[in-house]
């Protein structure tokens, strides 16, 4: 059990794109365990991405199975080299980030995605995701590109109602 240090904005390492995982070895599995320990150690986070602990590697963990209000989810997921294959719809929702404490904001995300990712052993899986879980995955994949939700926050006044009706 190792809890790693979470980098906080404006640490420049959060802005670096991450590299694909090539070796699905014991070192990777050990790192994934540490990443999960780190996710669980802090404030309630449904996801975490490797660059948040200073590893520029395309690895994220998402677990939407324990939210206060249940949401459609695929349980505890280790997503290695994740790729979004398709997007559909868009929806505004509130986000926060372990790397950006004391701030939350509204972000527009795809409502449904089709995702492809390897697991910790290197087997490829596809997932159809929606809503909260799809949002979590998009947030984490942004981390792999050096993006933060701060880059996507929209004003409270560009409100949900108008966006939904004006399209």
């Amino acid at each position, binding site marked *: 059990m190792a809890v790693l240090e979470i980098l906080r904005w404006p640490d420049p390492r959060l802005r670096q794109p991450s590299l694909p995982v090539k070796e699905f070895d014991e070192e990777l599995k050990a790192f994934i365990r540490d990443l999960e320990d780190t996710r669980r150690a802090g*404030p*309630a*986070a*449904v*996801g*975490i*991405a490797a660059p948040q602990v200073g590893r520029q590697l395309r690895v994220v963990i*998402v677990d939407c199975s324990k*939210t*206060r*209000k249940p*949401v459609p989810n695929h349980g505890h997921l280790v997503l290695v080299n994740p790729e979004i294959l398709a997007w559909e719809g868009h929806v505004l*929702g*509130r*986000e*926060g*980030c*372990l790397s950006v404490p*004391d*701030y*939350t904001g509204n972000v527009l995300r795809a409502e449904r995605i089709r995702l492809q990712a390897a697991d910790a052993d290197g087997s490829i899986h596809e997932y159809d995701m929606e809503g*909260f879980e799809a*949002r*979590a995955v998009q*947030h*984490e994949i942004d981390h792999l590109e050096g993006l933060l939700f701060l880059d996507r926050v929209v004003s*409270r*006044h560009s*409100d*949900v*109602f108008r966006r939904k009706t004006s399209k």
Partner: protein
Amino acid sequence: MEKWYMLTVVGADRPGIVARLARELFALGANLGEASMLRLGGNFTIMLMVHTDLDARALEARLAPASADLNLRLHVDPIEGRLHQHVQPEVRIRVHEADRAGIVAEVSEALADIGFNILALDTDVAGADDAPWYVIQIEGVAPSGLEAVAAALEPLRGRGVELGVEAIDTMVG
């Protein structure tokens, strides 16, 4: 000793209000905190937390020339100000209707009755002069839960008011 103030500003909207005031405050060595700056009905309005060692009267006096140039009304109140005290909204309420008489009072009273704490409330008027319609958006904390909010507002629905109540589930990752 440094103190927090709430600076309140209102005046006919024009370009450059924020730039001038922010520059003056920076020149005074003041720090800015959280703020709301909005155009309302052709006026520009500012509620701005300011941190400075000046007293309220001195701060007002130092901003008076800029305020006069821009034709603004400006007011300073000492406040108990603290940063990093954000409260996360749990519920969003949207109300829209074509005939507003009393709607803000009715909605907010129904919410107050169940202990709902309003963190932000925006109202807007859209449509046209002869056919206005009203939009209210509220975000807040509901100690008695989402269902209690929906139940408290339900009686309004029967009278031509359209409303939506939804949970704000903040995704942290």
